[in-house]
């Protein structure tokens, strides 16, 4: 580990999430942002006597929304990664910030998979692995559902074999 000289660097986890995550994130971002921008525009039109700079503000919100919808899914797809080894779960997520999470499999308490209605349309599923700490749940977003099923089965098998109370 740290005996060979050179500073150790946390490498990215091995696997990307499903490529279908990009359209999924785009759609969800589009829906959310459309509501926001729509509300802003309606407010701008309806409220009487708005000052001129309010229009500029609405325009800025609109531009930010477009940038968000266009860029966020692609950046996020590049950042999001996951890996499950025999000893640990490791994920990286985020798009502006970055979060790496690592939990030893021996401390895993529950393994959940979740598939919302929109996610089902895209054939995606998310896995959440919890430990005894409220700060420690690890979520792998947007795996394709076949992979998700395999990973859940594997994790369940490994955690069933450990006997500790995982605290």
């Amino acid at each position, binding site marked *: 580990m740290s005996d060979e000289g050179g500073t150790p660097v946390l490498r990215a986890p091995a696997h990307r999430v499903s490529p279908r995550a990009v359209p999924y994130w785009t759609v969800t971002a589009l829906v959310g942002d459309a509501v926001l921008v729509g509300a802003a525009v309606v407010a701008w039109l309806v409220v009487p006597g708005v000052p001129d700079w309010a229009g500029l503000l609405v325009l800025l919100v609109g531009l930010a929304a477009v940038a968000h919808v266009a860029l966020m899914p692609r950046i996020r797809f590049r950042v999001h990664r996951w890996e499950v080894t025999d000893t640990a779960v490791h994920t990286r997520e985020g798009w502006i910030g970055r979060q790496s999470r690592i939990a030893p499999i021996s401390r895993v308490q529950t393994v959940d998979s979740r598939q919302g209605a929109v996610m089902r349309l895209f054939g995606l599923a998310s896995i959440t692995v919890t430990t005894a700490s*409220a700060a420690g749940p690890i979520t792998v977003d947007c795996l394709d559902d076949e992979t998700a099923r395999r990973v859940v089965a594997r994790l369940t098998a490994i955690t069933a074999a450990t006997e500790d109370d995982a605290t």
Partner: protein
Amino acid sequence: MIPAPGDGWTRLSPRKLLLDPVKAVGQAIIPVVVALVGISRSDTRFWPLVLPLVVLGPLLLGALPWLTTHYRLTATQIQVRSGLLTKRTSTAPLDRVRSVDLEASLLHRLLGLQKVQVGTGVDDDRITLDALAVADAHALRTTLLRRREAPPAALPEGAGVAEEVSVPAPPPPPAPPLARIDWSWLRFAPFSLGRLVLLAGAVGVFSQVADELPIWNEETATSAWEWVTQFAIAAVVVVLAVGGLALWVAVSVAGYVLQWWGFRLVREHGALHLTSGLVTTRSITVEEAKVRGVAMTEPVLMRLVGGAELATLATGVEAGVTQVLPPCPRDVAVGVGESVLEVAGPLTGPLVEHGPRARRRSWFRQLRNALDVVALLAVAWWFLDLSWWWLGAVAAALLVLGAAVGEASYRHLGHALGEQHLVAGSGTLARIRTVLETDGIIGWVLAQSWWQRRIGLADLTATTAAGTERVVVRDVRLDVAVALADRATPGLLAPFLERART
């Protein structure tokens, strides 16, 4: 009358028959009085009928729990049966008993009773016995905790257990307490601001009342204000300040005495055992095997007088953070902390500093807060059309304060890794040092905001089941964070590490 295991179900203390009716009367007194007044107005003929009801009702209701509640200890379980129509049986395996807490309100103490709560490590599921005679309660506690110490497999089959307990065990040699109250610690009471909230509440109530007083209208206020400004503004300010201070000292000292009277912290049966309280006595047990670390807090005012507080971080109890010492001298907190950790150093050793970039972030964070406040004030100033000179002065003061707080929060930052402990320094105004057993770490989160990524810093969070469930090392260099996590939990990160290519 030590509760002996076996078939016999035991009732709670008969003195409960006195306790519950008093409670019941206390709860029923207002409706009863209202009813009585109503009846006495209308008709006096019903008196002979009503009076016995009023007297007997609470007595009967109070007696029910005593009549219906039984408990017993078997060789493997503690069982409690209660309820009149719906019978409820709670059981807990003896080897799962994690804590036995005793509590006594003033009424309990007058009657020589104690409430016993048995915790099994499952968060909400506590068995409550309210109330046992003091001697029984202590015997039960000793029995339960000592049983847990000895693994059941080591006991002889069957009868051995019963014999061991039914003979009144010779009192164990009293363990020397880790700490006991020292009334010179009272000097820390006024510097501990926890009770300020209470005082603020009282002042709030008073102001509500004052609003209703007839003297408090605009005219009197104006004339009073004129009088004040004319004659005695300085004197009034001084009197108010001195009065407030005196009130605060009285309230804080009284609170300290009430809470920490007779404080003792001892280690027995593999658990930390805390007793204290003047009116309501508490007795709290924290199993040492479940203690994963300690947190020492030095609030800013207490730092001035060298005081500190200490809490243990444990898993499997309702509140993972248990304050085990009253505000006391730092040396005492360090001594008890080291004794709990069973290793010297983590609470006093030097911390690795996080460097100039972390300092910059600490400064910026606090200055930005100050600027936010200044911006809000500026808006208010604009609306109220006040003198800008004042705003400038306030803004300058706030920014200087922000810088000072930023520097303080940087100086509190730091981390260290002992042989078995991760140490994290944190806190803005208070200096907090959290020590966590590396065995208690059940995962890592390495988070970087956009700002942190630009300057190569990260927040490293060790997740744990104990205490607040996380220990954060803030604004540490990314490579240092990775190395720290790797050394703290050898092997966990190994598959995900590679050498830097530079």
